[in-house]
């Protein structure tokens, strides 16, 4: 981390840099009460007689207090960073603020109890440099998320922001920009991994006075939130990348299509666009070129398929978000029939760095065919959930076991042999198992394993996860999100879901699995867009790697993990039950009864198989769930 090297205030005269208190105000930390913490700091620091500013002012002050965007360590939020001390406090409450002020800001010491405890070693870690979750990451796109104030354009500029766009507009020709991006080997971070340079070149050569650039911020993959984090934490980096793309293809209108489920990201992007307009980067005379450049932030309306390029264009044009056949590609005929390029948030953020530092520098990390870094959203049953930016080619083991700190069991404890699988790439992706732990994570290796990078959602699953039920979960999702245009996607996904329901509810026969497999291949072949083409992937991938689990459901009417309700029968082992009544009190539906100190019983009619009893029981007396 190079947090110390930037934005400590330009004091110029060799004075010691001002101390900074940074409260993370991403969606996760705000949910934990970060805004109250920020307010408490603001009031109490002043009361302590410390000279504090909240705006970005390069001149000498004692202390600067500001909020930052999401740092991607949401589980431990609200996070408070103190610089230059390099202290990261986690799970900070309003009640902790007086102690932080007295001990850290006045005496310069860390408040031990608020430091992160490494679950593997039980050691307290002072800052990001000592926390394994951060240690193994190489953050570029996420670098400034968590230090700079996302609503302050001055701070972004002070840290070298808009230098790349200025360079692109004043010193580079569109050809040179496209060449540099092509040379860097940058591939689209939103899913397909298409070479960005080729996409830009296809639009650049179009002889049309009107062209558009769209930033695809419709991050629909459930389980992925890296785009939200970048927009909340460093919105100007996205905007700057968008401006460079506009220069490269000769567009004068740009658009950012953000998911409506991300209200904070929408707010921060709008603010960034407004500030950039005031600074003269957008408007009638962008970067003094005398040419206009505009940017509009548009909210999506909750349709996953709109992440597909042509569906997104339809949505922007005020239609139902349905894809159309390609060619013509959007680069030839896109929004309103004009040449249009659509790039993902993370792709655009990388563009800034490539223009600043050059293609060769970008290629130093990652693999030859997948250069650079990629942000994965590591979630599910791991000790450390959050955003992980690592070079392409990092192994799955490094990400899950080292950065993620290992797989956790139902009670949240790290279990050495708990790893069952990860689902990568969301509803379009597949699962990776134990045998893939040493697989390098890059576009081509993953494709050969029947999965894909997708947007980078990485959901770790422990032994208690039923893979059939996971396949059903994704099929339910794609079935609902199918736009209905292609018959095989619309009806095929519905029938696949019905077959999976048969399996899960105990109605399946040997034929069901054959039919499911055949139908999966048909849906792949008979669908127009990425949604339909990839919808069967989770089913095919789980059938490939966990066939025995499907067989248990179909032939033995038994769900090994007990997650499928119809095939799970939780019961209380009377030999183990001590009659402590804990489970009966915990049961949300009152299905457990029994006298004190006598074995309890579960009423199968009332039971919703939620597993709360199994979680509560200290004697492992609840079985089959």
């Amino acid at each position, binding site marked *: 981390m190079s947090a110390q090297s930037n934005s400590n205030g330009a004091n110029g005269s060799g004075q010691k840099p001002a101390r900074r208190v940074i409260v993370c105000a991403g969606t996760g930390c705000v949910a934990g009460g970060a805004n109250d913490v920020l307010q408490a700091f603001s009031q109490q620091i002043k009361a302590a007689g410390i000279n504090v500013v909240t705006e970005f002012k390069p001149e000498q002050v004692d202390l600067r207090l500001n909020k930052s965007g999401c740092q991607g360590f949401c589980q431990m939020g609200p996070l408070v960073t103190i610089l230059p001390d390099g202290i990261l406090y986690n799970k900070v409450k309003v009640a902790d603020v007086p102690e932080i002020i007295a001990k850290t800001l006045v005496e310069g010491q860390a408040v031990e109890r608020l430091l992160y405890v490494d679950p593997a070693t039980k050691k307290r870690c002072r800052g990001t440099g000592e926390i394994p979750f951060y240690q193994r990451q190489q953050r570029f796109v996420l670098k400034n998320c968590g230090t700079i104030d996302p609503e302050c354009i001055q701070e972004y500029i002070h840290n070298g922001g808009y230098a790349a766009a200025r360079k692109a507009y004043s010193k580079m020709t569109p050809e040179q920009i496209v060449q540099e991006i092509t040379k860097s080997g940058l591939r689209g971070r939103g899913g397909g991994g298409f070479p960005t340079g080729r996409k830009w070149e296809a639009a650049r050569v179009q002889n049309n006075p009107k062209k558009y650039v769209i930033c695809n911020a419709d991050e629909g993959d459930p389980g*992925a939130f890296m785009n939200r984090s970048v927009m909340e934490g460093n919105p100007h980096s996205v905007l700057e990348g968008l401006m460079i793309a506009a220069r490269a293809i000769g567009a004068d209108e740009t658009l950012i299509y953000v998911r409506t489920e991300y209200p904070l990201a929408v707010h921060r992007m709008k603010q960034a666009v407004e500030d950039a307009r005031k600074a003269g980067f957008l408007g009638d005379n962008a970067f003094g070129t005398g040419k206009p450049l505009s940017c509009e932030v548009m909210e999506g309306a909750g349709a996953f398929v709109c992440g597909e390029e042509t569906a997104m264009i339809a949505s922007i044009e005020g239609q139902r978000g349905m894809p159309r056949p390609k060619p013509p590609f959007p680069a030839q005929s896109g929004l309103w029939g004009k040449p249009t390029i659509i790039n993902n948030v993370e792709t655009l953020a990388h563009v800034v760095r490539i223009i600043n530092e050059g293609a060769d520098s970008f290629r130093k990390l990652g693999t030859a065919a997948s250069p650079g870094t990629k942000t994965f959203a590591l979630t599910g049953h791991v000790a450390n959930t959050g955003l992980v930016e690592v070079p392409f080619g990092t192994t799955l083991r490094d990400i899950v076991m080292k950065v993620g700190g290992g797989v956790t069991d139902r009670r949240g404890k790290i279990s050495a042999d708990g790893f069952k699988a990860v689902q990568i790439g969301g509803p379009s992706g597949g699962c990776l198992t134990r045998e893939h732990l040493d697989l390098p994570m890059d576009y081509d290796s993953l494709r050969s394993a029947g999965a894909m990078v997708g947007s980078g959602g990485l959901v770790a699953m422990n032994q208690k996860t039923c893979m059939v039920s996971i396949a059903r979960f994704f099929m339910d999702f794609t079935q609902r999100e199918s736009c209905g245009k292609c018959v095989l996607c619309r009806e095929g996904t519905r029938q696949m879901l019905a077959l999976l329901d048969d399996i899960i509810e105990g109605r399946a026969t040997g034929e069901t699995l054959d039919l499911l497999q055949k139908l999966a291949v048909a849906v792949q072949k008979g669908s127009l867009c990425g949604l339909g083409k990839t919808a069967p992937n989770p089913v095919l991938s789980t059938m490939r790697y966990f066939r025995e689990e499907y067989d248990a459901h179909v032939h033995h009417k038994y769900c090994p993990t007990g997650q499928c309700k119809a095939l799970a029968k939780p019961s209380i082992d009377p030999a183990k039950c001590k009659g402590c009544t804990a489970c009966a009190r915990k049961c949300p539906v009152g299905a457990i009864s029994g006298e004190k100190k006598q074995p309890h019983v579960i009423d199968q009619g009332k039971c919703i198989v939620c597993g709360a009893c199994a979680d509560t029981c200290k004697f492992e007396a609840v079985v089959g769930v």
Partner: protein
Amino acid sequence: MNKRKPEPTGRKFVKVCDILDRHGRKASRLVPILQAVQEEYRYLPEEVLTYVATALDVSPARVYGVATFYAHFAIQPKGKHLVRLCDGTACHVKDSVPILEAVRKRLGLEGKINTTQDMMFTVETVACLGACGLAPVMVIDDQVHGQMSPQSAVKLVEDVITKEAQ
């Protein structure tokens, strides 16, 4: 449809006109227009949809088609408090479904009904709120609550009920 609800009055159409004007009465702005209308009324009343269609000079079918295509748009009125349960992958593997069931049971919602009879609560699931680090997540009236359990979720709903009773 709830027939006892009063018809939108002239005053309401004034607001729709404001929204239409703000977007230059362009059919290409249909999605943002409907978003603004929903912001105003909390759902898309049929009469307003027809009005929007006429004002934009497109068929009511086109407007209805767009309104029903996107999950964010609601054709039915929603309850006073909106409870959204995240059922994204991360929340799902961390057992979001039992939370949904417990909340629905507490509010007496059965089958396909998502809104309580007294129009106090609507319970929905969303695909992903991007707060996966806090899974499982529940949102009540835009307030995000993380690391939920069936018990804590029901408790939050009961807190709202208690507040309403006062």
